[in-house]
């Protein structure tokens, strides 16, 4: 099935409840054993409400969003993500994107996606954009 490309179209969003069980697993594969990601006291000593999740894990989440949407029909060319409010323990993060621009070319279509990661309470933990290229080739 062809992708539904239209300005303001929403990518299929997903959510994750985030806590040590997510962060510990990510720390193990990315060698990111940093105190503020492992201990509430360390987070508070750094002026944060407690332990916080890794920005790099949220980066992986937006890649997952884009990959699921592309479904083998293209590729991710660029991703930019800026981290805003800290991702706190127990927060449910909603990962989503909106099509901001479409550039149709002869052999591919370039799509700009606005990315967002926000909690149930509407706190934005990350925002950014991505450039995705959709192939004009037949469906996979």
């Amino acid at each position, binding site marked *: 099935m062809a992708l539904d490309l239209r300005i303001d179209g929403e990518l299929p969003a997903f959510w994750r409840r985030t806590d040590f069980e997510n962060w510990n697993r990510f720390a193990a594969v990315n060698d990111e054993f940093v105190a503020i990601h492992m201990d509430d006291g360390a987070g508070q000593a750094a002026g944060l409400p407690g332990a916080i999740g890794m920005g790099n894990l949220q980066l992986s989440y937006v890649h997952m969003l884009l990959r699921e949407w592309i479904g083998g029909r293209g590729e991710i060319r660029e991703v930019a993500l800026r981290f805003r409010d*800290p991702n706190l323990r127990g927060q449910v993060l909603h990962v989503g994107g909106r099509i901001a621009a479409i550039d149709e070319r002869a052999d591919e279509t370039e799509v700009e996606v606005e990315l967002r990661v926000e909690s149930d309470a509407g706190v934005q933990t990350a925002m950014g954009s991505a450039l995705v290229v959709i192939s004009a080739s037949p469906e996979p």
Partner: protein
Amino acid sequence: MHEPMTFLITEEMRSAVGSELVRQTAPPIAPSDVRRWALACYYPEHPPLRFLDGPEQEVPEEFNPFAWHPAVALARDPSMSVLDRLESGIGLPRVATSHGVHGGIRTRYLARMHVGQVLERVWTLEGYTEKQGRTGRLLFTVIGDRWADVDGSPVRHSELTIVRY
């Protein structure tokens, strides 16, 4: 033009902009590392099978083959952040901050990684800025991070921003 007053950025730091901070070669991308990465990132859901196994196993775009690099892991100093240590490696005094967080990243993908590939990375110091935050001065450090195959073909270019306070 009048330069804004800075409290954290020194002339030494300004002079160091453009310096190479680190140059590393990663071990060949191992199927098990890709599998673990996918399982960890997709948790608690199952990752796509194409990341887990098989002769056509794919590598996620954001996978980090430099994680657990011996030069970094063995040189770890709990009293210093990675960036503090890299700056001291080029002769800069430790900056007058106590904490640091990931500010953001911009990455351009030039080629997909594949299992067995050997990558090289170069970190360069791209720049410093500072501003007043709610509780004190914030130091923004931009690091250029360029990855290439050992044959020289580019794989990805990134800019990382680290916020220290």
